[in-house]
């Protein structure tokens, strides 16, 4: 390689917090070349986002850059005054943030938010900035951009909001774009569209892109070079194709092994099972939007049969009605029409004592293990809590059931006195599962139960769930937006869109030979991370140079 200056060159960067024993980032070095994509991959807590915020010089006030340099075209950003850094942010370095839901100001029209950057950095007056903002939204592929520009963030979908954020980032034609998990909050179809858009921008503008992601499939498919981060250090780096073809570091291999294989065979049905436990007929939910005006149905005449001991997966993008469906089945939300039969019990009609008995038989595990566990309870109290619904003399001895439940979900007994914040995300979700199986339910609703977890932890929790299902004969209603995860769990799949079931069938049939165009689109949008040994030369992207 000839001697040249890279666009971004980070050398020996260390970032520490006074309260933490170990630095968040340690001796990190990386380069981003113009017109190329460098991926920074790692699990949560590995220091990915700290690196991005260090480049933008937006670290929290208590964090310190203890060593190293961050050079943008040779200019060391760590040495700039705050005033000069203000002129760099947004103009030369732009950010595409993680969560489009909370990254736009809710009380400003999106057009104004895009125009604001132009007015700040490009000396555009109000009118020309507004005009350029509309043009940018148009280039980002928003339909009817003139109208969109006058809308507020809550009126746009997640994918549209991310397009607005990208428009805002590229408005000043920055040289470096930092994309911090730009698609982790989006469903597969929106994810693909956003990644395609970023790709096009990099190719046509010659900007460099630092793509921060926990998703190895995304990194493999979209980057030219990759840096694998583990506990604040780069453990492996190189050309993406080389690293994924022949990973040298154990951590990289571990990460790769946990990526769900989009071609993996689906689960064989558990023997001797399948008699229906839950039968849902014509279930609908309609929220009122006005005095007497019914809104569009959130769930529209859904039929579903969940076989005993099997996993019935409900797939669909955010807002498709999956969670509302699950909540109606558990009687956490009242349905407006339809029937729910649970082993002969009319779920929509049960009241009082019967309803409470039903609740013990049908449990739920939520997506976010951070907010679904009471922070003031210990692990032991959380797991034992379902028994407190029983009359005192029927309650089992906590010293017997709690260790047993913890063992079942693969947690050490020593954790029993810990509180949720002292646990990792995976441990928390295991606690939530232990709580859910405490009352020996028949049905377990898993509402995006592994979506917030890192891939390697996700794989472990999925393994645990399969094992528990085999041991306890549990019936799962598995809600997910992630087809790759569904493939590992489901015996039976329903695809939902805008409240309706567009396709349903056995997992093997539906996932391998989808009939409905929407199912096909969902399946096609799954990033095919070129896994070791399965990649062919043709599907490798030639680096844009």
């Amino acid at each position, binding site marked *: 390689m000839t001697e040249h200056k890279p666009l971004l060159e980070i050398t020996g960067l260390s970032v520490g917090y006074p309260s933490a024993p170990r630095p968040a980032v340690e001796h990190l070095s990386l380069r981003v070349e113009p017109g190329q994509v460098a991926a920074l991959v790692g699990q949560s807590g590995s220091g990915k986002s700290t690196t991005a915020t260090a480049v933008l010089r*937006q670290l929290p006030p208590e964090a310190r850059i203890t060593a190293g340099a961050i050079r943008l075209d040779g200019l060391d950003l760590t040495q700039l005054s705050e005033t000069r850094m203000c002129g760099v942010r*947004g103009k030369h370095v*732009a950010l595409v943030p993680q969560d489009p839901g909370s990254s736009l*100001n809710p009380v400003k029209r999106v057009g104004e938010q895009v125009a604001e950057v132009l007015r700040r950095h490009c000396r555009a007056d109000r009118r020309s900035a507004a005009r350029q903002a509309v043009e940018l939204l148009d280039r980002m592929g928003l339909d009817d951009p003139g109208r969109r520009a006058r809308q507020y963030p809550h009126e746009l979908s997640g994918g549209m909001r991310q397009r607005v954020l990208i428009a805002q980032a590229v408005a000043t034609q920055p040289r470096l774009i930092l994309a911090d998990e730009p698609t982790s909050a989006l469903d597969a179809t929106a994810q693909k569209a956003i990644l395609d858009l970023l790709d096009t921008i990099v190719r046509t503008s010659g900007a460099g892109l630092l793509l921060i992601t926990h998703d190895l499939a995304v990194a493999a498919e979209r980057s030219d070079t990759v840096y694998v981060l583990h506990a604040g250090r780069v453990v492996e780096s190189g050309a993406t194709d080389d690293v994924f073809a022949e990973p040298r570091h154990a951590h990289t291999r571990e990460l790769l092994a946990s990526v769900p294989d989009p071609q993996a065979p689906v689960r064989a049905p558990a023997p001797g099972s399948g008699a229906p436990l839950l039968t849902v007929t014509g279930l609908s939910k309609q929220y009122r939007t006005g005095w007497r005006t019914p809104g569009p149905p959130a769930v529209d005449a859904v039929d579903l049969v969940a076989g005993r001991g099997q996993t019935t997966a409900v797939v669909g993008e955010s807002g498709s009605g999956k969670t509302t469906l699950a909540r109606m089945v558990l009687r956490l939300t009242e349905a407006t029409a339809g029937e729910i039969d649970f082993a002969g019990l009319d779920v929509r009609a049960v009241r009082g004592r019967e309803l409470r008995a039903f609740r013990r038989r049908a449990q739920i595990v939520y997506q976010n293990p951070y907010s679904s566990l009471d922070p003031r309870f210990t692990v032991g109290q959380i797991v034992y809590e379902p028994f407190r619904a029983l009359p005192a003399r029927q309650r089992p001895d906590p010293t017997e059931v709690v260790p047993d439940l913890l063992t079942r979900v693969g947690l050490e007994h020593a954790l029993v006195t810990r509180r949720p914040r002292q646990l990792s995300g995976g441990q928390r979700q295991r606690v939530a599962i232990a709580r859910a199986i405490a009352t020996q339910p028949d049905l377990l609703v898993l509402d995006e139960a592994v979506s917030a977890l890192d891939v390697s932890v996700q794989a472990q929790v999925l393994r645990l769930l399969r094992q528990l299902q085999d041991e306890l004969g549990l019936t799962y209603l598995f809600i997910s937006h992630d087809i790759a995860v569904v493939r590992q769990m489901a015996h039976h799949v329903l695809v939902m869109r805008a409240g309706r079931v567009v396709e349903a069938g056995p997992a093997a049939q539906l996932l391998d030979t989808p009939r409905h165009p929407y199912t096909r689109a969902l399946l096609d949008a799954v990033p095919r991370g070129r896994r070791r040994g399965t990649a062919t030369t043709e599907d490798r992207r030639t680096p844009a140079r």
Partner: protein
Amino acid sequence: MRPGYVMTRLAQAALVLWAAWTLSFVVLYLLPGDPVRILASGGLENPDLDPARLAQLRADLGFDRPIALQYLTHLADALQGDLGRSITSGQPVVEVIARAIPVTLPLALASLAVAVPVALTIGLLANAVRARWAAELAFSTPALIVSVPTFWLGLVLLQLFSFRWHLFPAASTDSLAGLVLPAVTLGLPNGAILGQVFARSLSQTLAEPYVQVAIAKGLRRSRVIVAHALRNALIPTLTVLGLVVGNTLAGSVIVETVFARPGLGRLIARAVTVQDIPVVQGAVLLGAVVFVLTTLVVDLLYPLIDPRIAHTAPAGTRS
């Protein structure tokens, strides 16, 4: 906004007014003590009262009829805008109150003119100043101010600014200068409460992802606060502002007593001591009207500040 929403709110308002009126009626009748006896005693401790005269007075004032009948008669009168006559002075309650309003209204407005700038200053100091100690100070001032008893604050202000330095008159209802000290006494604690909420709300807003994105756009800190954080932080502050305005009437009881202003506060204080039921009820009704109106105004302001709040549902859209 839909006509259905406005109708619902008006119905709610009517319900609140009726409940306030009824509750005050019940409470006042349950109180120990006999308004007729207080009236006839003329302020003496244990006067010798002629039972026949007491009975006559009782009958004249309608206190001898069954309580349900009294309630219904008064309610019917109230619905026609007749709130009865003051037991002590014999004047119509509506007139008594109408005379006191022009004294209290300027005080209430002036106290708001003190409270709002105080709140803004506290909130901005707590969040926009880089010096850590200044921010800490701004965060802790509200607790300090609120913990000072209002009447004591009023007395101290009087002592210093009127008697020692002769800057403002001690008691003057017709000059603007006379309004300053009472307005500060009433406005300072209100401003502190508002400032506390505003400071917390602003610091929470500044931690939001969209504020980080705004900083990443290269905006200067002043612009980030003014253009992005301020409006979002205003929503909880506005809720509390509504309550503060509603509470001004209660606050005026102390302030008007200290500064000897013949306003609604003084009127209420005196009417309660002598159990002048019609006047107290009139004041309660007025307080309820003020509360209902301010909540309505606040609720109508929400969607102007936050486009996510739209008055489409019949009720329960208030955040």
